[in-house]
């Protein structure tokens, strides 16, 4: 199954609280231990992007409004 959606994490706001990582029902997210944000946190990123449904749960629970959610529009792509 191809991904139904994707998210972007604004690294200015992410504080590595891990709440999105825990709450994503499809285990899409992880903290990136290889990188640091300008504030010195390991940002959340899509470790398993193919599983993302674009459900938006991660954005709902993020305390720092760091997440933007998109859904792919495949019908439009075929048309």
């Amino acid at each position, binding site marked *: 199954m191809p991904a139904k959606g*994707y998210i972007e994490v604004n690294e200015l706001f992410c504080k590595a*609280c891990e709440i999105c990582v825990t709450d994503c029902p499809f285990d899409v997210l992880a903290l990136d231990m290889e990188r640091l944000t300008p504030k010195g946190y390991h940002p959340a990123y899509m470790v398993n992007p193919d599983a993302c449904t674009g459900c938006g749960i991660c954005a*709902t629970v993020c*305390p720092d409004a760091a997440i933007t959610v998109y*859904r*792919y529009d495949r019908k439009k*792509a075929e048309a």
Partner: protein
Amino acid sequence: MVLTDTPAKLVYERPEALGTTVTHYCPGCTHGVAHRLVAEVLEEMSEVGNTIGVASVGCSVFAYNYFDFDFVEAAHGRAPAMATGIKRVLPDKTVFTYQGDGDLASIGMGEIVGAASRGELITVVFINNANYGMTGGQMAPTTLPGQKTTSSPTGRDVKRQGYPIQTAELLSTLEGSAYIVRRSLHNSREIRRAKKAIRTAFEVQKKGLGFALVELLSTCPTNWHLTPVEARDWIEERMMPVFPLGDYKISSAVADLKV
């Protein structure tokens, strides 16, 4: 990876009313969720340009830096008095206070009871995190029986320090209260329900139906000495039995309101 060849539509982004300042809140603190919900609701109601917020004293003392609309800062506990004055002079404005449990239920208990009893047409967003966060985690009126804080190091002893104050229940007994509910910010389902309650509380003000308050159970991972994820479980396991979620006052006019 992101598929650049497939069109995608935006389904959620950070509300503009939140501004672009990074908050000073600790990682995982759900003050941030409450801020976002207020910003989303005011945007959805097209009220951003017509709103005046009243910040309180506590961790949310800098709330005026985080919302991209008019804000004032009240003395400790006095936000309801300041909001009363603003709303009475500018009745067409949407006026709300944003207060913690130390601010609202301790030093400011008289003010909030007065505002509710007078049926002031203001909206109150009340953050209950069971301690004084800003000053280092002291016991608040909302601290749970047995809860260890920096000023109750062996746990709150109800014989000496009394029982937690259930603010929503208490204010619901007052005639001037139109809408008094308790919600929680500990998971996506409850966050959605909290947003709906905040929307209703602002609609109650717009329609002039009376005093409206939403109590929100909120995490303080730093002073609870828990990770952000553990802190959310602590709300569910420890706080919710003492502070049950629910609707404590829905006046008949509010019951007829469609949100």
